[in-house]
Each structure stands twice: as structure tokens, then as C-alpha cells.
């Protein structure tokens, strides 16, 4: 489950960078924490911003199923698992 460590760190950095979060360092984000219902306090605009950045960075696409997307965006861990599975294999 946790062999996406590097990817998770990358996604944490991406989130802090893209959202210009203040007072939060990437390493302070717990990969298992709820992204949208905890102290990070992210909202629907942030969700859009993150999904755009992830699509652009990893060449993956989020499809229209809201239930599925909700579970993908649950935490950094679930996001990383989705990206690892969906992205084109690198060389």
C-alpha cells in the first residue's frame, strides 16, 4: 500500500505549491488524512485546482463518476494510488 512514498511526497509538494498554502509544509501533511474535511480545510475551488494540476503533471484524467472521484480525492494516499495506476508507465 505504501510503496508510492515518493509519489505521495511529490503530490504533497504539488498541493502546497499549487494552492500556495501558508503555514503548511509538505512534510506536515499526513498521507492518510482526509484532504477535504480536516484542518487543511480545502474546498471545492482547491479540489478543482488540484485535479487540474495532477492531470497536467501526470497525464491522467479524472472521469465523471462523482462517487469514484470522492474516493480518489479522499487523501494523498488514495490520490497517489490512483495516479500510480492510471499514469502512463515511464520508460
Amino acid at each position, binding site marked *: 500500500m505504501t510503496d508510492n512514498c515518493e509519489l505521495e511526497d511529490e503530490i504533497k509538494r504539488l498541493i502546497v505549491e499549487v*494552492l*500556495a498554502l501558508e*503555514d503548511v509544509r509538505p512534510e506536515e501533511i499526513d498521507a492518510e488524512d482526509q484532504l477535504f474535511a480536516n484542518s487543511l*480545510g480545502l474546498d*471545492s475551488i482547491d479540489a478543482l485546482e488540484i485535479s487540474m494540476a495532477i492531470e497536467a503533471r501526470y497525464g491522467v484524467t479524472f472521469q465523471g463518476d*462523482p462517487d469514484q472521484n470522492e474516493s480518489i480525492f479522499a487523501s494523498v494516499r488514495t490520490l497517489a494510488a490512483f495516479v500510480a495506476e492510471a499514469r502512463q508507465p515511464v520508460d
Partner: protein
Amino acid sequence: MKWADFRDHVAHLAGRLEHAPAGPCLVEVTDPYALAVSLFALWNVGRCAVLPPNLQPGSLEHLANRTAGVLSDRPGSRTLAPAIDPLDAGSERSPLRALDRDALALELFSSGSTGDEKRIPKRLRHLEDEVDQLEELWGPRVDRAAVLSTASPHHLYGLLFGVLWPLVSGRLIHAQPILRPSEVVEGARVLGECTLVSVPAHLRRLAQHRNVAALEGRCRAIFSSGGPLSQATAHAMAGATGVTPIEALGSTETGGIAWRAQRPGDARPFWNPFPKVEVSCNPETGTARVRSPFVSVGAPDFGFTTADLIELLPEGRFLLHGRSDRIVKVGEKRLDLSAMESDLRTHDLVADAALLLVDRAGESRVAAVLVLTPGGERLLCAEGRRVVTVRLAEHLGRRWDPVLVPRLWRTVSTLPETERGKRSIASLRALFEPSLQPPPASLEDRPEVLETVRDATSVQRRCRVPESLSCWPGHFPGAPVVPGVLQIDWAMDAASALLGDLPRIREMDRVTFREPLRPGDDFWLRVDLEENGWIRFRIWGEHAEHTSGHARAERPGLTG
């Protein structure tokens, strides 16, 4: 899903509602299709639907206590009353009746100028007349295309454009909410052709999406409302899709007011009132006065006066020039800054608060400047700023939509004021300058240093503000003062004498701008490196205390 299925769902739900307690019903339903079923079923049994201003637990609880029942499609609804799922088929069906145009159909909420949520009632005719007008204006253009809507169906715009208009005119809608640009692109591909109903925050991202070109020739119309659409986004969308977005202007109180389409080269893109709407300018306030069949509050003959400042042009057209109150839009949500400031002041940690909008990552977000109570100060010193701000964000999150909760926070010892005793927006704004790092000041933007005294951990300089600074023409016309950012820059320049390097500021705290600093002023500037890595700075004159505060550098610079 077919029309017959819709009628079936409505009849079943109405059957169940016949036996539920009478009175208005809270509709906490997020899927557009289930929402449509809920509304028509309630109307069929002569009940009024109450749409919550947001889905925050605090708001829902409050409304659930004031309504006779709750319809919800959200698992784990947090309201106390047992909720009915609108798509759960019951055994009974209610016959579908012709609806009464004058029946009270809907209650929506809008933040008023006093900050309280104002209840806005709508009769069925208010909604039906608006839908008729949309069909008259754009029906032929959108033809039979299905509607893809990213706008919240809980607000009047999303409900009218994204749900009721298509449904009443027999066009397809998407049963579930759509938000992401990729979902819009994919939806349009599957449908072949669509009408896009959206909001500026979503269109801005859609315009930047790598597959936006796939929309070319697939949109019959693009609608936007809930805030001004930037010219850049309007043009980018037009370029990508071949369709110029149509912006609708309106409010919960007045319903639709006007529309416009921004085309390249429009210097002053004006608004066209809807055919049944009359817009005049209230001479006392300079704001729009709206008379139309859609206005559901106030005296119908007199019209409803909004807080939108307008300039009338020939033929009823007009330009918008911002608002006369402190109501702002974030995302598509309306926020009264004064109301949220009052809410913040009720918190134990907060003595005073000022809110403003700042640009963060390309989006307008709410920013807060706080004066803490002694208890708040203690917590700040012991636990750091994040612990304080998380607590306040949680407090606000009970009542306010998440997109409205401040994303940037600063603490000061007093709120900066102008000489006339009003809040100084410029000084507040300066606290949020991107990383407080202005481009290196030009030579003439430095103070004249008359004297320097330093030891291992402090520098004190006696300086004079030069008679001319490059920033002065705009700051402010006729009354030049040294911008707060530049003062902080001067302080960091002094700190670099101690650190050997210009510190990159990571955060600022307890920054206070008291007396303004003017051309020709003599002043002292002192910088102290504190043991905890913070840089303390103070700027004062013979008769005045100008500025003080703390800054922390990106990398602690205390290396002996």
C-alpha cells in the same frame, strides 16, 4: 431516464409527502435530478421547498429546526429530523396536479447588508416567468441540446439555467453534479452537442484545460453567472469553442436582471436588461433599481434597490461599477465581509478582525487580519499561528461555506487606520503581498542612511526618506506615503547587514502600521535578531511611532 420515469419518481415522492407533516420542507439534495424530483413533488402537494444557503452542519441544523421535514440524498445527513430520500420509491402514488402559479414554491437565502441571512420567498410564477424568458431569448439558439451544468442548483442561477429551464422545455440534464473541466469535456464528447451552464471559477480552469479544444463546435451556448467573467476567460473560451460566453446578472432577490457577451475589442462591455426587466438608477445611492415580474421582495411598483453601483447608458443598457456595500463574491458564493468579521469577534481568541479579498493562486480568496485577545496572544506564542488559524477556521466553518473561510491570516497589534480613522485597506493589503518580497528596490527607493550603529544581533540606523520615490505616483495621488511593503523592505535590508544575506521572508507577525512615513521624514530603523530566529523591526521618528513587527526568514539566519 425518460420523462415517464421523472413523472413516476415525482408521483411516488408526492405520495409519501401527503402523509408527512404539513409545512415547508428543507431540501438538502445535491444531485440535480433528485433535486428536480423533490421540488416538483413538494409543489404537487402544495408545499414550499427551502433550499439551504450552504451545506454546513450549522446552517442545516438551524433550518431543519424551522421546517416541517427534510428531503436528503446525502448519506449520513447531519440534520436531527429523519430525512426522506427523494428517489426511494414508496408504495403510494399521488396523482399529478396542475400547479398553482401563485403558490409559495421556494425559499432561498441571501446574505443581506446587515449580515444576517435573508429569507427570499419565490412564488411559482416568479420561476415560471423567468424560465419563459430564457426560452424566449435563447431557446432557438440552444435548440435541443442537453445541458451540462457546473453551477450549484441550490442557487437561483444554477436552478433556473441548469435544472428548471431544460426540464420544463424538455431538454436533457445531467443527473449528477459536474465540476471538473475534464468532466465537461468528456460530457460534451458523449453528448455530441451541449449547452454549458457554468461559473467564472470553473470557466477559467476549463479555458486552461489541455483538452479544451475538444469543445470546438460542441457548445450551442455557454452561460456564466455568480460573479464577473474576466475578459481573458471570455475570449479564451470563445477562441476554443467558437461560442462567446453569455454572462447573466441577477440576484436572489431580483431574479435575472441583465446579460452581456464580452467580445474582443469591447472597451466597456455593457449589460442588456432582460426584455421584461426595467433598470433605473436610484439617485440617492447610485445603485441599480430593478422592476420586473421576477422581483419577489419589496414593493412591486417601486422595484428593488440593489447595492450594485451602475452607470446608465442609452437604450436601458448599463455598466457595473462594483458595489456600495461590503458584499463580495468568492467562488459563486456571496459573502458579507462585515458579517463574518462580527462572527470572528465573537470568538474567545479574537479582539478585532478585518477581512478583505486578496489574490491567491489566481483566485480571489478571503484574507483575515486579526487582533488577538491576551488569551489568543498566549496561544499564538505557545503553539504558533497555525493552531490559532485552524481553530478560527473551524469556528467559521460551522456557519460559512468552505470557499468563504479565510485562507490567509495575519495578526497585528492594532488594525491599521488612515489618518481619518478609517480602516486602511492599503496597509491591510500590504500584509499579504506575495511573500512580502517586492522586486529589489531601485537605488532611489532606498532611504538616505545618516548613521548606523550595530552589534552582533542588532542594527540601528538613522535615516531620511528621500523626496522622491518611484512608487509615489500611485501611492497615493496627492498624499505620498512610504508603502508598508517598502518599509519592511528597508528593515530587511538592515537585517541583511547582520545575516550577510537578504532574508527571504517566510512569515510575518504582529505587524503594525501606525503613523504614515512621508517624503523628507527623518526616522530611526532598528532590527533585532531574536533567539527564536525571528527578526524584530521597528521604525519610529522623533514624534511618531511608524511601524513595527516581526518577520521570520525562510532559513533561520542565526549562525553566530
